């Protein structure tokens, strides 16, 4: 079932990973970002994380959820609560999943 076209496409996808992640440092021509942009980029890491995470917690099928009976909400709350209490990302994951799995698999939320 594997054909050369698909293999070539997958290799192309790996190249897309390289090119997008290296985009602004592939060329060695000297240039620097204007100072406001350099300052602005300091806010980008947390913004990127929030932009990926929040829709995954509060949306289903492209719609904002309209029920509180969603395992993800409680899992995220538990995760944040753990982080505030103890710090530590591993604890956040474990506390969150300890709430998520029973609600999701047990109650179907």
């Amino acid at each position, binding site marked *: 079932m594997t054909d050369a*076209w698909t*293999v070539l*496409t*997958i290799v192309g*996808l*790996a190249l*897309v*990973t*390289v*090119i*997008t*992640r*290296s*985009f*602004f*440092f*592939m060329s*060695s021509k000297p240039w620097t*970002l204007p*100072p406001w*942009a350099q*300052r*602005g*980029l*300091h*806010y*980008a*890491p*947390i*913004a*990127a*994380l*929030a*932009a*990926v*995470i*929040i*829709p*995954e*917690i509060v*949306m289903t099928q*492209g719609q904002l959820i309209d029920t509180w009976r969603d395992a*993800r909400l409680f899992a*995220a709350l538990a*995760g*944040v609560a753990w*982080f*505030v209490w103890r710090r530590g*990302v*591993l*604890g*956040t*994951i*474990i506390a*969150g*999943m300890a709430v*998520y*799995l029973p609600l*999701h*698999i047990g109650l179907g939320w």
Partner: protein
Amino acid sequence: MTAPLFRHPEFRQGMRDMASAAAGTAAWGLMTGVAMVKSGMSLFEAVLMGVIVFAGSSQLAAVPLILGGAPMWVILATAACVNLRFVVFSAHLRPYLMHQPLWRRLASGYFTADLSYVMFTNRHPHPVPPADTEGLRAQEAYLAGNCALTWLSWVVPSLLGIALANAIPLSWGLGFAGILALLGVMCSLASSRLRVVSAGVAGAAAVAAFALPLKLNILVAIAAAVAVCLMLEKPAAPPAPLPTTKGAA
């Protein structure tokens, strides 16, 4: 002759920082492996993709297109759009990497996924000057250690997911552990009021712009958050004396 990068203490520091989030990366990799096989890719294709593409969201976007027989340029353009946030990250990382030869920069780019970018720029808020070889070495070692553990905790579980695809139901939602890992790292970054504002604006904008195709909502959200934070910042000291005085603003 310098010692190999993996002997540097910062290499271990990079691994330690990533270790706390690796369980989430692993759960997400596992479920991506399962999803690739369940959607009908052959074993070889799934393994190849799981080992070389190293970008979860673009893999998940590309798989249905590949199986649906879409033209190759459509698939690659889709993956590039889904990856646009990395283009923003590359602008941020540029001053950290320009002292390296091209092939090293490309390798650094390839291996620097979301969390490595976030942790690296958090550990090293400012690039060291090119003359400081010790400092450069420490930054390189940190990034290498961080990325090495990310690679392992992504690729090994991906392969496991491919092997066990029929034993692990997608409906369990184990992949949510990946979101929780990002959530924990996000909390650890929320060290100033403006950073909290940045997260809030980006989260709201990503939801509001969700209808945009190709995950462009993420790019819109980053742009909105950065713009709002720049406006709220205390004005920085003027870069140079102004030629004329225009009165107090």
